[in-house]
């Protein structure tokens, strides 16, 4: 028993077994290197070995964390002795832990680190684009930076809000003590971390030239760095679908007595609609990447036109996943927005049913629009009016979210705290993002804007301006609850204003630059765009610097200042704020019962949940 304590299972054993597993797989893969397989001779690259190495490496990593203990013990008929690590110690943050609150904080730090790396890539890209000609990186490194930035962000941010905030808060919000599948919950996090490291290994194999979309036949032509992209996105897809499954199962089965669907906090609805998308879209991604893997290793020809396949097939399948994916990024942000606005307007959520309809409507419609990414590709040209219509229809449910937000502000008593500022900025950014999206949905207008910096700026307005601003709103709002310490309000405001202004002065001009004829992902651009691009680069550097302000504030407030936040610093009436900060291990002593109103502002009822929530016993 003592020996087991010493050697793990924790992050250290996981890393050791992961590295060992990688090299064992690498060695195994090279046993295939027979002269009979001629493409090894032709290309000098052994994708089979690399895929096996990634697989064994990830399996080793998970075994090292202790994911195999429970099933193996059960298989051997022994009583399971899984240390759930639910009770105490900082060590539980560095290993397999099934406490949903620990997983939430693991997600916050882990995803934060990868967002930081993705952001650094963006800085390096903007450094190159300071001048029209190539001056910083060689063409291959530039494309790798573009691909790493896009893939890292699109992959990691799928769980950017659901990961930290839904894992931490959703069980509390529905009056549960845990998620439906706690071990799967931990697995989603560690899969994502393994995926992030796998993606970084692309640097050792020459990078990949395809951007985050990974179009065929370029993905077949690319060197071994491409395999990292495939393994990364497949792992992310697996993590996403498991996360979605877990969330849906939790909300369906674990709601407290009296908490019917119409009484759920709106954030829970945001999580549910996102989870439906994750569960249904991510498997498409996994399958299409397996097909790419087979094209690259077993020499199948799914996407090889010369061998009877079709690059269109890849484009179609990728965007069947890819468009729901961008709403996976947007919907949780809407949930956070509508959760925060009532608190700082001191008003009930306006148009609750409308907002729920909006979220579900977005989720449904997002499956019907994918070919708007292919308007000029020549595929199904006669169907373009349909996709134009379905795409523009999405603005109706999105409008529901907006009108619910506007209605909540109406006649409120608005307090401009940092989370509220980020929420209002969300409204502005997403408005710009949504309106620029209309140009991309309209085919004649899309002819010029497709594949240009305009479309790039558009989705940065919706993803960075939407998701990342909501992410920060969530951090400033809930981190006091999660840690028990206040974040410094003044530095939060400094961070907000610098970020908001520099964000708009980065991506606003990029909308114009796109319209003026600058294609995406090109290392050179026309000379007449230099002034605007230099302006954008400088703004982007300021935007990057604002993240450092946040980081300094975060570390200062939580490590050095440590001002206790109290249980309810925002005077919110939602249930999570009626519990101590941080929330104790088993959440509630007694499972609470819920009244009919999730946002009882302006009524005499006070806190709807309070009578039912016994103060939780401090756990030793």
């Amino acid at each position, binding site marked *: 028993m003592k020996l087991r304590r010493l050697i793990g299972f924790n992050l250290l054993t996981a890393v050791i077994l992961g590295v060992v597993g990688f090299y064992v797989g690498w060695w195994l893969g090279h046993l295939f290197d027979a002269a009979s397989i001629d493409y090894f001779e032709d290309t000098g690259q052994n994708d089979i070995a690399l895929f096996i190495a990634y697989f064994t490496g990830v399996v080793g990593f998970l075994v090292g964390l202790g994911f195999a203990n429970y099933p193996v013990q059960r298989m051997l008929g022994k009583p399971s002795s899984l240390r759930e690590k639910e009770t105490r110690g900082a060590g539980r943050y560095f290993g397999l832990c099934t406490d949903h609150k620990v997983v939430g904080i693991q997600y916050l730090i882990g995803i934060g680190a990868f967002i930081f790396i993705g952001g650094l890539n963006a800085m390096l890209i903007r450094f190159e684009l300071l001048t029209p000609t190539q001056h910083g990186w060689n063409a291959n490194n530039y494309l790798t930076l573009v691909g790493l930035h896009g893939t890292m962000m699109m992959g990691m941010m799928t769980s950017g809000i659901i990961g930290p905030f839904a894992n931490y808060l959703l069980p509390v919000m529905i009056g549960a003590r845990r998620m439906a599948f706690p071990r799967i919950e931990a697995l989603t996090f560690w899969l994502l971390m393994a995926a992030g490291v796998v993606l970084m290994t692309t640097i050792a194999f020459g990078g990949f030239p395809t951007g985050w979309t990974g179009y065929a036949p370029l993905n077949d032509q690319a060197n071994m760095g491409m395999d990292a992209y495939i393994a990364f996105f497949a792992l992310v897809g697996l993590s996403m679908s498991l996360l979605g499954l877990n969330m849906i199962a939790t909300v369906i089965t674990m709601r407290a007595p009296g908490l019917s669907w119409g009484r759920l906090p709106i954030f829970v609805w945001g999580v549910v609609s996102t989870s439906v998308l994750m569960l249904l879209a991510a498997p498409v991604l996994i399958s299409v990447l397996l097909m790419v893997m087979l094209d690259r290793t077993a020499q199948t020809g799914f996407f090889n036109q010369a061998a009877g396949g079709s690059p269109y097939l890849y484009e179609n399948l990728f965007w069947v996943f890819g468009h729901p994916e961008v709403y996976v990024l947007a919907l949780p942000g809407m949930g956070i927005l509508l959760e925060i606005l009532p608190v700082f307007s001191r008003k009930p959520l306006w148009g609750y049913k409308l907002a729920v309809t909006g979220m579900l409507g977005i989720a449904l419609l997002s499956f019907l629009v994918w070919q708007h990414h292919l308007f000029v*590709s020549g595929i199904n040209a006669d169907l373009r009016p349909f996709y134009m219509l379905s795409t523009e229809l999405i603005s109706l449910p999105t409008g529901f979210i907006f*009108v619910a937000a506007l209605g909540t502000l109406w006649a409120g008593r608005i307090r401009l705290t940092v989370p509220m500022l980020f929420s209002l900025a969300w409204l502005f950014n997403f408005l710009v993002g949504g*309106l620029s999206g209309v140009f991309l949905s309209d085919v004649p207008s899309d002819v010029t804007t497709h594949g240009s910096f305009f479309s790039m700026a558009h989705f940065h307005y919706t993803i960075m301006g939407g998701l990342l601003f909501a992410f920060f709103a969530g951090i400033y709002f809930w981190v006091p609850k999660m840690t028990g310490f206040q974040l410094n309000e003044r530095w939060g405001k400094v961070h907000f204003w610098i970020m908001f202004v520099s964000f708009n002065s980065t991506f606003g001009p990029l909308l114009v630059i796109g319209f003026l004829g600058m*294609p995406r992902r090109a290392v050179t651009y026309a000379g007449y765009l230099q002034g605007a691009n230099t302006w954008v680069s400088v703004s982007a550097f300021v935007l990057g610097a604002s993240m450092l302000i946040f980081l300094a504030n975060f570390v200062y407030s939580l490590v050095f200042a440590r001002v206790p936040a109290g249980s309810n610093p925002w005077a919110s009436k939602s249930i999570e704020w009626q519990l101590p900060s941080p929330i104790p291990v088993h959440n509630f002593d007694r499972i609470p019962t819920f009244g009919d109103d999730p946002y009882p502002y302006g009524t005499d009822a006070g806190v709807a949940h309070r009578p039912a929530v016994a103060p939780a016993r401090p756990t030793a």
Partner: protein
Amino acid sequence: MSLRSHGGRIGALTVIGTAIVLPLVIFVLGPNMPPGDWTNAGKSQVFDNTVLLAVMTPFTVFILVYIGYAVTMFRAKPDEELRDGPPIRGHFVSQVVWLVTTTAAVLFLAIFGSAELFASNGSGGGSGPNPIATPGGNVLPVQVIGQQWEFTYRYPTYGGVETAELMLPVNTEIEFHVTSLDAIHSFWAYQLGVKADANPGVDNIAFVKPTKVGAFQVRCAELCGIWHGYMFDTGHVVQSSQFASWIKQQRQAFSAVQRYLPKYATTYSPDPVARAG
């Protein structure tokens, strides 16, 4: 102040704001929208962009005015005791008004966009191998072949001559046939308002009629590998007589290599294995 008069003020500010911004959008910004008036496709896109901007303007003005007004007027005073706002949970009429206006705008945009798409023969966008909307009368077919990492051009009505530069006669309906030999490229002739993906094995057709003479920028708009950023070119729209003499000179210059070229076809298969069958 009553809530009704707050509403009246927001309404009035929206109307005033729209009355100021809308003419600017329609008469100043709209006509100057890219890609310009070089071609029928470009003109249709400018018109489209103007209409989109005009439809968006009232909604944008309303939302911005509303947020600005709410944050200013409904703001709690800093030293004020924390009080709740009125428990308003919805308002049937405003929800219906919002639903009806946004639905009307969306349906209008979708119908307008589709009509404009067909009226302008695809508005310069790649419309696949069998476009429904085609210009009547004489067209000049020009094939654009994308390969890593350059575009070349073939003129099937001039013996299938293949050139490294793109020359087009003015006031002639051009029928671009865009295809690729390897990865997916995208042929983007910016000033012409033309963009069509170049897919291997696919004949992607786009129509455009240039009405002005001058040089235009051609760029690849789909990531196609390491030198994607260098896949650009300059094309020219010239007078018909100039085009005739240029194409004649090209045919002479390339007559020696013409017989080594594959016969003109809508798609090509550079893969030797596939070509052998």
